């Protein structure tokens, strides 16, 4: 929901980042306000997932220029766990399997860690069990998933549901969902999308990183951004996604170059 008076959650300016000495992000700008749903689309290798990981604080990526503010706080100076505490959540494209740790243990540890640091009440195993089972209904997840090891042997769709379950438990202010739709069949896509939709409030925001328009039929974005070569080169409304679906990405790049894209890049970098 677009409300120009809504407070700014995330302010990214001229963000440049590299991995192993290779520049991936080359001057990225983005502003996200409370209540908004953004979609970041773009071809493979345009830097979408890198952007998501840089926001969450992955140490393999080096930020070489630019600023990121989250509710006015300098996000780049914070370790990943402090970003989680500040209200940032990354839904992983490839959620990690942790054999040997029960999903319920992991979910409760994560939940209680943030609760404690926010000065709120922690839940004991029984209380947490009731709490998490309620949230699981949202994603039509069987309670069996609590007893299994974290993501171990989960199908692609089950892993993604488990990610959204974590989002539901941790109640982030800003959720970045990295290709949450990949590997989902049509039923799982519907369930996951409905889950996300129920978590969206006027006080939080969601950034969807996706290849495909089909996710956006379920989670309707307020803004659609197109990334290419490490920058956002076009921003539009939800209709842009439909156009991208029809025409591909090439025309966006051509249009951007014609408008003097190279010059813009130098200015922003």
């Amino acid at each position: 929901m677009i409300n120009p008076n809504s407070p700014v959650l995330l302010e990214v300016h001229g963000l440049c980042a590299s991995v192993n000495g290779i520049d991936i992000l080359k001057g990225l700008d983005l502003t996200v306000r409370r209540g908004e749903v953004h979609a970041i689309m773009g071809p493979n290798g345009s830097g979408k997932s890198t952007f998501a990981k840089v926001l969450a604080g992955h140490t393999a990526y080096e930020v070489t220029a630019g600023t990121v503010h989250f509710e006015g706080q300098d996000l780049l100076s914070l370790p990943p766990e402090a970003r989680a505490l500040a209200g940032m959540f990354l839904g992983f494209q490839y959620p990690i399997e942790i054999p040997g740790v029960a999903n319920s243990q992991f979910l409760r540890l994560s939940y209680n860690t943030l609760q404690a640091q926010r000065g709120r009440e922690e839940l004991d195993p029984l209380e947490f069990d009731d709490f998490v089972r309620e949230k699981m209904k949202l994603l039509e997840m069987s309670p069996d998933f609590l007893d299994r090891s974290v993501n171990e042997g989960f199908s692609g769709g089950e892993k993604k549901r488990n990610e959204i379950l974590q989002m539901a438990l941790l109640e982030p202010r800003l959720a970045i969902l990295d290709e949450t739709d990949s590997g989902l069949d049509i039923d799982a896509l519907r369930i996951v999308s409905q889950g996300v939709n129920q978590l969206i409030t006027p006080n939080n925001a969601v950034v969807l990183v996706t290849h495909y328009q089909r996710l956006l039929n379920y989670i309707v974005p307020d803004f659609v951004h197109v990334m290419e070569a490490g920058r956002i080169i076009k921003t539009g409304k939800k209709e842009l996604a439909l156009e991208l679906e029809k025409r591909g990405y090439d025309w966006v790049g051509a249009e951007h170059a014609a408008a003097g894209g190279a010059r813009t890049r130098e200015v922003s970098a």
Partner: protein
Amino acid sequence: MSTETALRPPTVDRLGALLASQPLPESSPWAAVNALREQAQTALGALAMPTLRDEAWRFTDLAPLHRLTFQPVVAASRLQPADIAPFALDDTACRLVFVDGVYAPQLSGPANEGEVVVTDLPTAMDTHGAAMKAQLGSQQALGDNVFAALNTAFLQDAAVVVVPRDVVLTAPVHLLFVATQAGALSHPRCLVLAETGSRMTLVEDYVALQDAAYLVNPVTELVLSDHAQVTHVRVQRDGPQAFHIANCAVSVGRSANYRSVSVAMGAQLSRYHLQVVLGEGAECAVDGLALLAGSQLADTHSFIDHRQPHGTSRQLHKCIADGNSHAVFNGKVVVRPGAQHTDSAQSSRNLLLSGRAQVDTQPQLEIFADDVKCTHGATIGQLDAEEVFYLQSRGLTDSAARKLLTYAFGAEIIERIAAGSLKNQLQQRMLAQTGSHP
């Protein structure tokens, strides 16, 4: 050449030195036991203590062991059940307790469970003399092994379990070996006979009520008749200065199933040598975990012998090495000629938590049949950065994330322990050792 020889330290008879301080046991009332001892004493005459020059011992230096002297304990223990309460398992059928190698009837019980025999060797000789005579020391795998021969040469008593044909024992049998005296040398012995179609779970548990040095030298023999199913949980949680040198030989009959989980977390130096011989269509799953810190050394040698067709073996061995510790794994799988349709998979996974810790792992596969499916592999590494990041992104600090992942690495093996209350105890110990609190 002569110069080289001169530079070497003079050969010391380590075995002779160890034997010199050991009075031979008094003659046994059973001829079979005396015969076994004499055979082993003769064998010892031709054997020597292994050194780093022996291939099977190249990473495991026994020098710290040779610097000490050890004495057998003969007196019966005065321990009361309350003393060993921390090691009690609440879900077992029977418990046999040996203190410094000596049977402690006051701590053991109930004697038998239904038709299942769980008792000491003298009692078993009376009631099951023929079976004892036929099976005790019958595993050829133990033949030329100096520590196994030592055990047999000093054979006094044993924990004996006999599960009759088609009998299913659901609750585990707990064999508890408690070390209480400094400098004690004990030779625990276990003999488990699972008759045709029977099922049972055995917990073989080594614990300490002391921090001083001692030497425990166990030999365990398991004979699984056709279609028998045995789950064998072995826990070495000896004292911090202990030496633990163990041998286990398992014979798995036709279509029988042997599953074992062995955990090594105590002792300054420990060695576990497991040999499994598989009959036709037999299956085994042999898993292990060594959890090491300080200057501990744990050495696991295993030998899975596919002698007949259609056998299946699975092995997952994990080591977690912190501090200056040293983990050794040597896992050999042999598929004999004619053992067609063997299905074998072996994996050695090792986690180094410190720059000073060391892991030597050597999976070995020898195949002499042409229609088989065999895989093996080894990894040595540190915690995965992506896994740490995943947990950090959920609010855990770097340190908490690493502790949890270390715990999880070991917990994958602990999870496979069939005895609930033992699993719990080990999980708690792992949590304490890794400093994790999930």
